[in-house]
């Protein structure tokens, strides 16, 4: 039984088919990676699944329910959570507050109680703060809790976004290049973190350029090129797939040419 089911998903931008007819499924606790050259439509696919863009075609089902074109905050309530490729941090908040803000669905309550700082409101805040501190420890940012979020390094902000996304206690987690900008040690930490989260039963959909990491932790890989799915399967099979090699080598060859010119 799959938790997240994608069927025939597609979107156009100004007449150009950015993503077309992409489909795959995600089982509980499974790690599925979406790979492909730059501009293949990976982030666009994420934006459609998470409700940021409205797909023109196709269907997204979460635990059997049709959630196509559902706004992100409704998807969040159903246990779908994500991070962003180009960071979307709450800049004017502290690191801790960013993580606390991820608990919105668990801590929200009556505005009246919040205005008058009633015991119920303080209790909700305290609970989410405790959980947020634990999550920050988990991603290795425990000691940076009181800093302004804007002062963190790029890699640290990536991990802060993961902590914020985990705060929702999601069933499905979409990670858009979580290891970008991280050094080897940090990448390995994120690697472990993802595996551990998956082991707790969370399904993870991953976009990542670090191929070693992708091959190591994915159960299943979906390959996109020019907005279409060109292959999918187990890591070992994908690594041998001629179409995938072509897409990548072709892209690399073009890149090399561009670099020369």
């Amino acid at each position, binding site marked *: 039984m799959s938790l997240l089911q994608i069927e025939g998903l597609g979107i156009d931008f100004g007449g150009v088919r950015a993503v077309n007819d992409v489909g795959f499924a995600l089982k509980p606790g499974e790690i599925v990676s979406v790979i492909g050259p730059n501009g293949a439509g990976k982030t666009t696919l994420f934006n459609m699944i998470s409700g*940021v*863009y409205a797909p023109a075609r196709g269907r997204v089902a979460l635990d059997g329910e049709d959630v196509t074109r559902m706004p992100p905050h409704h998807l969040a309530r159903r246990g779908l959570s994500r991070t*962003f490729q180009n960071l979307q941090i709450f800049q004017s908040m502290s690191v801790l507050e960013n993580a606390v803000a991820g608990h919105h669905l668990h801590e929200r309550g009556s505005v009246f109680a919040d205005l008058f700082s009633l015991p119920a409101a303080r209790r909700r805040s305290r609970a989410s703060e405790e959980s947020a501190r634990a999550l920050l420890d988990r991603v290795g940012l425990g000691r940076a809790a009181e800093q302004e979020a804007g002062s963190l390094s790029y890699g640290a902000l990536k991990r802060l976004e993961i902590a914020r996304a985990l705060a929702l206690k999601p069933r499905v987690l979409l990670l858009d290049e979580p290891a970008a900008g991280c050094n080897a040690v940090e990448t390995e930490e994120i690697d472990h973190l993802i595996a551990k989260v998956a082991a707790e039963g969370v399904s993870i959909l991953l976009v990542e350029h670090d191929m070693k990491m992708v091959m190591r932790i994915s159960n299943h890989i979906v390959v996109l090129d020019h907005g279409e799915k060109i292959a999918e399967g187990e890591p070992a099979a994908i690594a041998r797939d001629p179409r995938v090699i072509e897409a990548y080598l072709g892209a690399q060859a073009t890149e090399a040419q561009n670099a020369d010119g």
Partner: protein
Amino acid sequence: MPELLQFLLSGITVGAVYALVALGFTIIYNASDVVNFAQGEFVMLGGMITFFAHAAGLPLPLAALIAIIATAGIGVALNKLAIEPARGAPVVSLIIITIGASIFIRGATQLVFDKQIHRFPAFSGDQPILIGGATILPQSLWVIAGALAVFFCLWLFFTRTLIGRAVLATANNRIAAQLVGINTNYVMTLSFAMSAAIGALAGVLVTPITLTSYDVGLALALKGFAAAMLGGMGNPKGALVGGLLLGILEAMTAGYISSQYKDAAAFVVILAVLFAMPQGLFGRKSTDRV
């Protein structure tokens, strides 16, 4: 029928002024993403400076020319002294800066000139022209012709000249424009000068009809802003259509419903349009990139 035509004619006259103010908003907005609330003060300056130059004995055309050039200079000064130093500030700060500039210009005008209401003679006399039972002042024709001429010149400028295309390129993507070698600071200076000159021209044209004093700018700025938003900010065609629509709407409301609520009608329609089309009539729809 003559009644309707009469309202239409007066609406188009007022609308032409709004359109000129809205065009001024549009030019600056395109070059800098700033909505310049001091735009109405340019109209006021155009009228005031012309009056005082004329009163000092200069012939009217020369007085008007001086007013337009002087106002363009003030526009450039506004850009250099207040807008450029505040590049990248949030929208609300920019609103306060340009409203501050508008209050400052008003205060300075009242010191340099006076607080009286002024008028100078119409260009082609005050004898109304009869059209199908309705009348129109010759000066109104000057106003309408002025608005159309400015719109046409702007269209030529933006589509047929290199510098005009540079302005459009800057509006589209400032950094890309810089990369291809466009001097974006020059583009901004030029835009403020043009916008101020167009405002002053509107002031010169309309003062014989509506009179002028140091405090007429704010109301014009609000109407021009509303017209520009109605049409869709940043679109010259939208500014022209928005201005004319607003003017006609006001005249019709004043004529058929209540003159006290003529300003209300304009804002009710703007609210209605924005609710249905959040980007205005001709605005581009934007997609957030994440």
